[in-house]
């Protein structure tokens, strides 16, 4: 396994400037980038050579007169004003053409819903399947229809050279076609990693593969969104076949039969962004801690109080702004439609284990 801590320069072998090219846009964007880079370098090197050469060659002792006092040369000035403009037009045109391709999703693209919130991602695979990881199919044009439940976020996949802001109050769309499939790590490697940490608080950075054993591409939030902006990351996995993707989606659709509700609740707590606002050790974050929460009595912002029973927990997940705990802001997004009844029951079961 490639350990990024020990081999920080490993990626550089591929390209100094870019991450791997993993979508159909990447080559075009990199080409435009390189084109501008080479044109710029020609000018830059020319300017610096002139700068250094003049500074040395015309360095004179104090008081020696300049060799010339020419103050203008209109044809020359017109030449260097108008000449580079052609290059600028060229850059603009190639940039705009690639951009238009990136703006127009092909008809019949595979569609995935994305919800961004402080501070995490929920991908909607349809049929009630939600998961924080973005799973795609190789060579399949994919359109993301994205919304935000609080502030502006921005979905950025460097390997795809794709980025788009997600503005609350409207849907924003982006599309791309993945061209590199994610490798699967060996069964042994996966097993040993799972034995080390368990599946709940999976450390993507450490292992560089998902709990399902796939290598991944990074997906970042690129628009500043507050406290845990830098932790608002998830991963992109590209499957080789439709069957493989379908199998993965099916597996994530609901609680597997052999998993107890409270264990599933813990998985959801870690996967669905609860952990970024609610601690389980009693420390105060954006929302109340889950430790000793179930069964306790809360003072509410409107002065009344409420006992944290299953009904209140359910209401807080679906209508988080209805009964806000005193001392906290009504900032939690609603999970209505994103969690099945079984999911909510599992979370309730998990909360109960934290209050024992």
């Amino acid at each position, binding site marked *: 396994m490639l350990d990024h801590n020990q081999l920080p320069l490993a990626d550089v072998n591929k390209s100094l400037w870019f991450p791997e090219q993993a979508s159909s846009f990447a080559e075009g964007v990199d080409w435009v980038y390189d084109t501008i880079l080479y044109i710029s370098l020609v000018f830059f090197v020319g300017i*610096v050579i002139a700068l250094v050469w*003049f500074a040395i060659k015309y360095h*004179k002792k104090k008081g020696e007169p300049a060799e010339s006092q020419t103050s203008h040369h209109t044809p020359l000035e017109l030449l260097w*004003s108008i000449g580079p403009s052609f290059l600028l037009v060229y850059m603009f045109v190639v*940039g705009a053409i690639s951009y238009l391709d990136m703006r127009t999703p092909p008809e019949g693209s595979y569609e995935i819903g994305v919800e961004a919130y402080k501070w995490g991602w929920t991908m909607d695979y349809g049929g009630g399947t939600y998961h924080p990881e973005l799973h795609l199919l190789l060579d399949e044009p994919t359109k993301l229809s994205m919304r935000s439940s609080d502030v*502006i976020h921005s979905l950025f996949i460097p390997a795809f050279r794709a980025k*788009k802001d997600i503005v609350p109050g409207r849907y924003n769309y982006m599309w791309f076609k993945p061209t590199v499939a994610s490798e699967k790590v060996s069964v042994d490697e996966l097993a040993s990693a799972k034995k080390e940490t368990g599946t709940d608080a999976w450390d993507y950075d450490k292992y560089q593969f998902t709990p399902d054993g796939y290598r991944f591409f990074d997906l*970042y939030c690129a628009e500043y969104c507050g406290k845990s902006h830098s932790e608002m990351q998830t991963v992109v996995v590209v499957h080789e076949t439709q069957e493989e993707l379908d199998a993965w989606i099916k597996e994530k659709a609901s609680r597997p039969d052999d998993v107890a509700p409270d264990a599933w609740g813990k998985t959801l707590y870690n996967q669905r962004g609860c952990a970024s606002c609610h601690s389980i050790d009693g420390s105060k974050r954006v929302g109340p801690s889950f430790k000793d929460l179930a069964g306790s009595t809360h003072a509410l912002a409107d002065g009344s109080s409420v006992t944290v029973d299953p009904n209140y927990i359910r209401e807080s997940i679906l209508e988080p702004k209805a009964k806000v705990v005193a001392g906290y802001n009504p900032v939690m997004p609603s999970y209505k439609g994103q969690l099945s009844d079984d999911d909510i029951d599992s979370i309730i079961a998990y909360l109960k284990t934290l209050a024992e």
Partner: protein
Amino acid sequence: MSAGTLPSNVRDPGFPTERENYLTNSKGFLSWFCTLDHKRIGVMYLIGTVTAFLIGGLLALGIRLHLFSPEGWLFTDNWLGSSVDKNTIYNQVFTLHGAIMVFLFIIPSIPAALGNFLVPVMLGAKDVAFPRLNLSSFYLWMFGALFFIGALLSSGLDTGWTFYTPYSTTTDSSVILATLGAFILGFSSIFTGLNFIVTINTMRPPGMTWFKMPLFLWATYATSIIQVLATPVLGITLLLLIAERVMQIGIFDPEFNGDPVTYQHFFWFYSHPAVYIMILPAFGVISELISVHSHKHIFGYRFIAYSSIAIALLGFLVWGHHMFTAGMSSLTTIIFSALTFTVSVPSAIKVFNWLATMYKGSISLTTPMCYALSFIFLFTIGGLTGLFLGTLATDLHLHDTYFVVAHFHYVMVGGTLIAFLGGVFHWWPKMFGRLYNEWGGRLSAAIVFIGFNLTFLPQFVLGSRGMPRRYATYDPEFAYLHQMSTIGALILGIGLLIALVVLIASLVNGKRSPANPWGAATLEFACTSPPPYYNFERAPVVGDPYDFHDIFWDAENERYVTAEPEREIVPQTVPEESPAHAGGQN
């Protein structure tokens, strides 16, 4: 200019007596704080903006040290005894750094500090058109600065200096106080701009036609136009933001049917032209420096002058390029991209003209010249990397990454700060009548140059490899580039410290400066160093500000002298004694 014998008709202002300059003509606390003298106001601005820069710079070092390790190194969950978590502290620190640097240093540094000191002297006037307005703009700035820093510190603002909605309308920290601070600072900026426009329009002495003005004045004039036209838009935007927070009027917050992108349009309609408030005066400074220290007539004077105005006007049309990823229509983005490219033409013209000015000149590698050469190098990188961001396809990938951070630091720090330092070193002997240690100055220029490049070059790579900006923690594969950058920042800090020490040391034990230490032909070097209270003992004779034919090196006395031109001095421009209105023509 000639190294040989001097002509017989040289004029040598020599050294002033201790009593006759603006620093010594009156004494005491009140004589400074109630002064109407533009030079003293300029000096007070200089102290203020440099103080702001030092605070902002320490915060920058904090940011860089924190990013030395992927999990964050400097700030911890119990930093300085506070129980705020480290990401929150990091977010507050970068907001504080950005807001202080933009509003309190980069925008006012050259126009307000150097501009206040230099505009009337370069023009040959006795003061600015509205000396009292000038003083009040300084006090507004002081008040705004204290209020602003106080608000930022007390509320722990974490929105970033751009106050993007809806984050800024929903966050806990008190955005209102901070935006009020920026609002007050805006007024100071408007007053200064207004004053300069009127001064340059009405107070040019006889003979000083538009095309006899030094290019620094052209740059200041163009800047002032932007200040007066764009700053009110920022004011209105910030008031709307406050109204939105207090009354939920539904302009920016989608929860009340507002549109957050509207805020971005309003904000950048000011803040993009503000980028040219930051860089245009720097162009002006560099035009002076290159010409004077090459002892050669500036090449393409008119092109440089026109390009300043062109940048000021085009600068109003390109704000949309901050929103290529926000979801504007394709047509809008393409139009903004095309317009953005137009701004690079006048900037490129200036670089070519500066190089042509050096060609066949008589170049002295003085400290200001070292900074000017450094400026051309760094600004060229800053300008060329702007092309990647103006091009749509590449901007999508690079937007909001470290590439952008590197690009605007090359323009604002590599451009504005370096030009500011070059300008300070250039005019320091004029301002305080003392020469500094040349070797120390050049050493500072070299170390600043090395440190700066080591700090920000790796950030271009970071950005194109996909590292987003404003991250308190990051993936380990970016660590080595961040570490290079942090080491660079420490070196840069040392370089800036050397510059500060060299300048302050000159006040203590520097040699007295002659009137014209560099052999310049602009008017400020025709008066003594430091200038007398009313700048000129008699009306200056206006000539071509870049004509070095009359200036000679007096090897015996080791200073530059000016041969009296055979021109008639206009008698009615001799100043009256202490006129109430210190204009040049009354």
